């Protein structure tokens, strides 16, 4: 019994959902990346997630507002970002993992500014969304 318990613990440690604060289930397609080009329309600078909304034109020219989640205020602030890092109307490119069901919601991978610099990168540990 004890050996089984240890084996199952090892399995469950591999399996343990490591998101600290939030249940996600299958919210995002983490194997898929989408590149969005558009303008910042709103920044919700708050916990537990900073959310950035941007207006993106689809193939037909229709403007769709996307929202993508980021780390919380303290994590982003520790990386030097603040409420005014992105300004309303600013043109950005966002690389995101999109919602699993195709809705215009996503989780950040990175944000690319007009000069090509990359900020708020989850890949580089600057945006540790949990």
């Amino acid at each position, binding site marked *: *019994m*004890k050996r*089984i*318990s*240890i084996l*199952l*613990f*090892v*399995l*469950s*440690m*591999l*399996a*343990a*959902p*490591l*998101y*600290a*604060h*939030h*249940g*996600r*289930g*299958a*919210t*995002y*397609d*983490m194997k898929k990346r989408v590149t969005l080009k558009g303008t910042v329309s709103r920044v*919700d600078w*708050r*916990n*537990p*997630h900073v*959310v950035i909304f941007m207006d993106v034109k689809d193939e037909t020219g229709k403007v769709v507002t996307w*929202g993508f*989640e980021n780390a*919380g*205020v*303290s994590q982003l*602030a*520790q990386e*030097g970002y*603040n409420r005014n890092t992105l300004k309303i109307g600013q043109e950005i490119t966002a690389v995101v993992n*999109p*919602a*699993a*069901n195709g*809705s215009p*919601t*996503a989780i950040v991978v990175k944000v690319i500014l007009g000069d090509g610099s990359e900020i708020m990168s989850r890949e580089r*540990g600057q945006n*540790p969304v*949990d």
Partner: protein
Amino acid sequence: MRNRFITLTILVFAVCLLPTGVANAQGDKDKFKARYEANAGSKEFDPHDFSGIWEMTRLDHSFGTPPPPLTPAGTAAMAGRIVDKPGVIGNAPWYTCNPMGFPRLMNDDEPMEFIMTKEKILQVFQWEHRIRYIWTDGRQAPSGQNLENLGPAWYGHSAAQWNGNSLTVNTVGLDERAWLDNAGLPKSFHARIEESWKRVDSNTIELQLTLYDPEYYTAPYVSAKKTFKKMPDDAISYFGWSGLFAGISEGICAPTNEVEGYNKGFRDVGQAKSK
């Protein structure tokens, strides 16, 4: 028969967890390691002074060791607890901003500050912006009728004393609704959790927890040794504004943000349909 039932319960539990963990484990554990290893601890420190802001280095949101087998009552206490897996959103209490409770918050991935006073130690946790009181004025953790009269608390009732350079904290009266860890393990109201804290250098504190809960576990549950590293000054001074704004920030889980904004606005909106 009883053992078979318990084994089956644990097996189902672990198998349900497996896919999610494989997907998410990378990059979370030890994510602060490189950052703090460069900030090597000096030998000059007061072993009785834990003041400062600390962060756990290894993040598994659990005791980090295999739990002993549960009693039938312990197994029953887990009924209705759902952990995340692909396509299924769990029902951990904190997903709707209920308190993580002790000891789950201790095993969280956000900073915690120790504030030492003559008669008590305060732990201020960034997540929940929570204060935990640990009395060091000689009182003992409540027991017997006193404990029954006090009733359960999310963070229990804690008292501590120094044994040499080791701080021993006893916590009792824990609220059973709070999960022990992300896997939803239980703890009973009559459980006692003993923490053993030791500052081993200027930048490092070690912690080991032991859960004594004969109602729900067939043996004491001893955690792995947890390591906390003192946060470098530049990590707690936002934007380099040292002295202007620093310290534990407001990691409040507000339902208006988490439940209305996040759960309904993102989590649920993007869910793939169950097949």
